[in-house]
C-alpha cells in the first residue's frame, strides 16, 4: 500500500510539479509549433504519451541489464537517441500497415516526435535513482511527464486560440504573446511546488 502511495506521488509530482514543459523546458519546439490548432494538440499529446512510455519501457532495461553490466553505460545518450528514433519509425510503420484509423489520429504526428527532446530527456532522467527508484516507478514517472505535457499543451492551445480573437498590440502578435503566455503558465505551475 505504501508502494502504491509512492507511485501516486511520483505520478502527480512528474505531472504537475516537475512538469516536463514548464519546469524542465523540454519539448518546447512542439509545444510552440503544434499548439495553434486544438485538433493537432490532441493527436500530438496521444502520440507523445505512447512514444514516451514505450521508449522508457525499452531504454530502462537496456541501460541496467545490457549497457551497465557490459561496462558501457557511458554510451547511453547515443544508444537512447538511436533506440527512440528506431522505435518511433517502427510504431509509425506498424500503424501505417495495420491500423489506419489509429494512424490518422496519432501516427501522423510521429515524424515530429522522432527528435522531441522531451522523450530523450525523460528516458535519461529516470535512470537517476533519485528520480525513479525502480522500473515500475520509472514507467509511472514517464506516464506522469507525458500526461503533464498533454495537460499543458492543451491549456496553452486553448489560450492561444482565445488570444487570436483578441486585440493584441501589433508588436506582441504571434510568437511574442505566445512566449509571454508560456512564461506566465510556468510561473503559475511554480505555485504547485508545495503540493507534495
Amino acid at each position, binding site marked *: 500500500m505504501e508502494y502504491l502511495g509512492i507511485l501516486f506521488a511520483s505520478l502527480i509530482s512528474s505531472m504537475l510539479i516537475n512538469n516536463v514543459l514548464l519546469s524542465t523546458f523540454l519539448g*518546447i519546439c*512542439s509545444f510552440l509549433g503544434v499548439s495553434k490548432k486544438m485538433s*493537432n494538440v490532441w*493527436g500530438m499529446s496521444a502520440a507523445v504519451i505512447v512514444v514516451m512510455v514505450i521508449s522508457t519501457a525499452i531504454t530502462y532495461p537496456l541501460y541496467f541489464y*545490457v549497457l551497465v553490466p557490459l561496462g558501457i553505460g557511458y554510451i547511453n545518450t547515443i544508444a537512447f537517441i538511436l533506440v527512440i528514433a528506431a522505435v518511433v*519509425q517502427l510504431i509509425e*510503420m506498424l500503424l501505417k500497415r495495420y491500423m489506419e484509423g489509429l494512424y*490518422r489520429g496519432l501516427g*501522423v504526428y510521429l515524424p515530429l516526435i522522432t527528435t522531441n527532446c522531451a522523450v530523450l530527456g525523460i528516458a535519461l532522467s529516470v535512470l537517476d535513482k533519485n528520480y525513479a527508484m525502480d522500473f515500475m516507478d520509472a514507467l509511472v514517472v514517464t506516464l506522469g511527464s507525458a500526461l503533464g505535457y498533454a495537460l499543458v499543451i492543451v491549456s496553452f492551445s486553448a489560450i492561444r486560440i482565445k488570444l487570436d480573437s483578441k486585440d493584441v498590440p501589433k508588436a506582441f502578435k504571434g510568437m511574442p504573446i505566445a512566449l509571454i503566455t508560456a512564461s506566465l503558465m510556468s510561473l503559475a505551475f511554480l505555485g504547485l511546488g508545495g503540493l507534495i
Partner: protein
Amino acid sequence: MEFLYGVLAVTIIVVFYIAVSYQNDKTEVPEGCQEAYNEAQNCSACGSKNSCGIRKAIIEMKETKL
C-alpha cells in the same frame, strides 16, 4: 574489451535503425490519411518545415534561397 562492446552495441542499434527506417520509408501513407498527414506536419516551431527529419531539412535548406 569494453570499447569493443561499445562499438558493437552502437553498430547493432544503428543497423536496426537503418533497417526500420528503410522499411518505414517504403511503406506508403494510407490514401485516406494523406490530408491529415500533411496538416500534422505543418509545424512552425523552427525553420525546417514539413518534417523534423534531417534529410528533408537539408533538402529544404538547399532549396531555400536567402
